[in-house]
């Protein structure tokens, strides 16, 4: 019980540090909109869970052994310092009439009783899911295959030795004569194993069930962040709660929490946060938002190898935001160049990021359809994305949404290219990695679809809907 409390305290510290970090950036903004507090809390976890492993890397480089004191104390001091800055800024803002934040309840219209009941019902439903998944995380020792052949392998060695040691491929391992360690994927990024190391340090022992707590925290924080992001962008509390429920309900994401240990859910979370932060920046154009967006984009690179490509898919949205006139032409040209380069590369059979590229266009359509539309991985997500893309064509290309739409489109294009032209198509055919790759973009695609639907409904609502049909739909 005491070690469980230590574990919770360890991750509470990381989360609090991240909240303080994001809050420092957010507190620099005037008039934070409704939901910004929830966005700060949700995204704060990801900021902390990215920066603390960076700190652990720094400790390792300087030869300081991992310990509660070495990792935790500086993080605690930084949290207190950042919290102090936030409080001082808030106090200053409260004193200054021009910077004062109006948080009076008259700002938000009262919610009807029926809507409130639905919202609290959904929150209870979400709580049930979170508790159920927490039990699985708490009880189940490391289970899925890749978790124990390429991710936790590093955590186990680094925790036991007290510092990061390099891993190498077979030939390098033999040549190193004991100075390199070996696992199935020695080149994988260190962030996720360092989460497990921090869990173990906080616990004070190796426990390959409890060390996976950050997967559950990732899942909860993502729901909170999405709620906050949508509130910031004008969603009411019920709509934002529905969005948080929908994104938390994706079955494959749930599996990746219950059977924690893969980096795909963290990848999905960081990519979603990076895209939402970039979108917020594209609308508000201020430095704090730019810093937060950049932080999460950089974090993508440290989670999984394809994080580099996911981070690059943010670029079209940035270009469209910076150059609304010439942007579409630049993005279209870039896509054409990418396709051309692909064609050229295909003729020369190179290997890029471990994926062999060649122009043998033979995607496994049937398996892809099974995976996206017929099996239980995604509920109705991909039906929704297809319908929203068609019905909402005019809305999603409009200035408020075009940046986010471009990111989602780029992400989907990346997946299509990978599945159609590379040896990744085998993963589609045998239903293995296909869904894990799709998971990277699934929460973002769903959030985007919800935002487009809301924009559509708002556009339609400018002319009141007939009362009898609303009644018929309930």
């Amino acid at each position: 019980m005491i070690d469980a409390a230590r574990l919770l305290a360890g991750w509470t510290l990381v989360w609090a540090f991240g909240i303080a970090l994001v809050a420092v950036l957010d507190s620099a903004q005037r008039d934070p909109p409704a939901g910004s507090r929830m966005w700060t809390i949700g995204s704060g976890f990801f900021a902390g869970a990215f920066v603390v492993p960076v700190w652990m890397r720094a400790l390792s480089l300087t030869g300081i052994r991992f310990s509660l004191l070495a990792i935790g104390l500086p993080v605690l001091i930084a949290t207190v310092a950042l919290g102090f800055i936030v409080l001082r800024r808030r106090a200053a803002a409260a004193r200054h009439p021009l910077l004062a934040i109006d948080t009076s309840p008259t700002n938000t219209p009262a919610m009807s009783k029926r809507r409130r009941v639905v919202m609290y019902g959904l929150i209870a439903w979400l709580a049930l899911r979170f508790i159920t998944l927490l039990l699985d995380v708490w009880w189940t020792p490391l289970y899925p295959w890749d978790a124990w052949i390429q991710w936790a392998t590093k955590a186990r060695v680094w925790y036991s030795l007290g510092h990061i040691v390099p891993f190498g491929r077979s030939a390098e391992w033999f040549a190193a004569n004991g100075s390199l360690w070996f696992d199935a994927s020695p080149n994988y990024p260190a962030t996720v194993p360092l989460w497990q190391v921090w869990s173990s340090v906080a616990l004070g022992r190796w426990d390959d069930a409890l060390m996976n707590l950050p997967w559950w925290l990732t899942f909860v924080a993502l729901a909170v962040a999405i709620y906050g992001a949508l509130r910031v962008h004008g969603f009411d509390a019920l709509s934002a709660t529905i969005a948080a429920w929908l994104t938390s309900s994706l079955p494959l994401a749930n599996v990746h929490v219950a059977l924690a240990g893969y980096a795909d859910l963290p990848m999905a979370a960081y990519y979603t946060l990076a895209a939402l932060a970039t979108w917020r920046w594209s609308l508000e154009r201020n430095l704090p938002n730019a810093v937060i967006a950049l932080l999460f984009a950089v974090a993508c690179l440290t989670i999984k190898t394809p994080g580099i490509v996911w981070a690059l898919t943010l670029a079209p949205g940035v270009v469209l935001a910076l150059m609304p006139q010439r942007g579409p032409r630049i993005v279209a040209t870039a896509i054409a160049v990418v396709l051309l380069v692909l064609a050229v590369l295909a003729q020369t059979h190179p290997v890029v990021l471990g994926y062999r590229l060649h122009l043998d266009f033979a995607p496994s359509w049937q398996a892809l359809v099974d995976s996206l539309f017929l099996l239980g991985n995604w509920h109705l997500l991909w039906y929704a994305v297809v319908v929203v893309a068609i019905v909402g064509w005019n809305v999603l290309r409009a200035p408020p949404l075009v940046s986010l739409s471009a990111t989602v489109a780029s992400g989907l294009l990346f997946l299509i290219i990978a599945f159609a032209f590379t040896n990744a198509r085998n993963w589609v055919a045998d239903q293995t990695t296909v869904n894990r790759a799709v998971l990277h973009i699934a929460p973002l695609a769903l959030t985007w679809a919800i935002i487009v639907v809301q924009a559509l409904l708002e556009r339609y609502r400018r002319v009141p809907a007939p009362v009898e049909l609303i009644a018929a739909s309930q």
Partner: protein
Amino acid sequence: MFVAALALCLLGYIVIAVPGKWFPSVTERASGVAQLTMPRGVATRSADELIVTRAAEDGNTVISLTTDFRALDYPVVQWIAAGLPVDARVALLWQTDVEPARVNKRTLNVESGQVQAADLHGDPHWIGRVVGLALAVQGMIDTPIRVRGVIAKPAGAVDTLRDRAREWMMPEPWTGASINTVLGGSDAQRLPLPLLLAVVIALCALIAWLLLCTRARNWRPGVASAVVSVALVAWFVLDARWTVNLLQQARATALQFAGKDANEKLLAGQDRDLFAFIEKARAQLPQQPARVFVVADADFFRGRAAYHLYPQNVWYEPYRNALPPADRLHAGDWLVVYQRRGVAYDAAKKSLRWDGDVTVPAELKLLDHGGALFVVR
């Protein structure tokens, strides 16, 4: 509106899926693993599954059972088998009392690794009494095939709907494949629930549009609200099914692991024997990480053994059943051999011999649980 559209969709499905009597007089007949025999191929029984690991010498695998039912009463046969390769050649074989010398064959489709049901309505050889059924798989088996049994179905309207509901509500416990795919119910589903609900939503949209376009010029907000409402209800239906599955799984996890400490959990886990052996091996290994080579026939055991051995400096072939190059082994290296054929130890000469007549001077340090630990001299 949602309920009405769902009822309409199910009615449409019955019209398509039930060519025979909608209300037959018999109930379905299910045969589990206990009734199955294996005339060709190699398999082991694990709980309620037959795990087929190898085909017979001629490359064929046959799983059969003796039956006795009227063909006319049971026009649909469903083998519950999963893990088949996409290109597997799978067939249903049967014999009847009308043509006892004849073995009839119907090729079965495989989708997502699962055998699809055979609808034998109108087959000229599905007559009299069916006295034997078999599942035949042609070709070598690379990954294990899991067979749970076979069901002969009267395939009436109620049975068909009950089957679909059973497929949707079938518990989906965590397996090695769960991290890659969520099936959403049973291994084989003839009417995936997401597809049905998507059609229901489309139908609702159509009804809403028909209702509104005659009454109002601006029908879009009403149709959009209706579609969003119905879609949320449909999503909730899917999510409720999934949440029930999560709760069932949490209960199973609790039964297996709750109240145990980290070591006890591993001793109750998927590789308890291996873990017990590695615990003993770890006691023999030096405190400072040494080079430890792991060999085992199964990829699973190599990877798991390595995982349990860290932070020792472990090497193994993750994807190939191969031994380390003997010339790269040094004195002081360690070798863990776990359920690996072809590795022999000569205690008198204190040497190991393996594939390709390789000999390595080594000393046995531990022999236990199907595993052995050696130190290279």
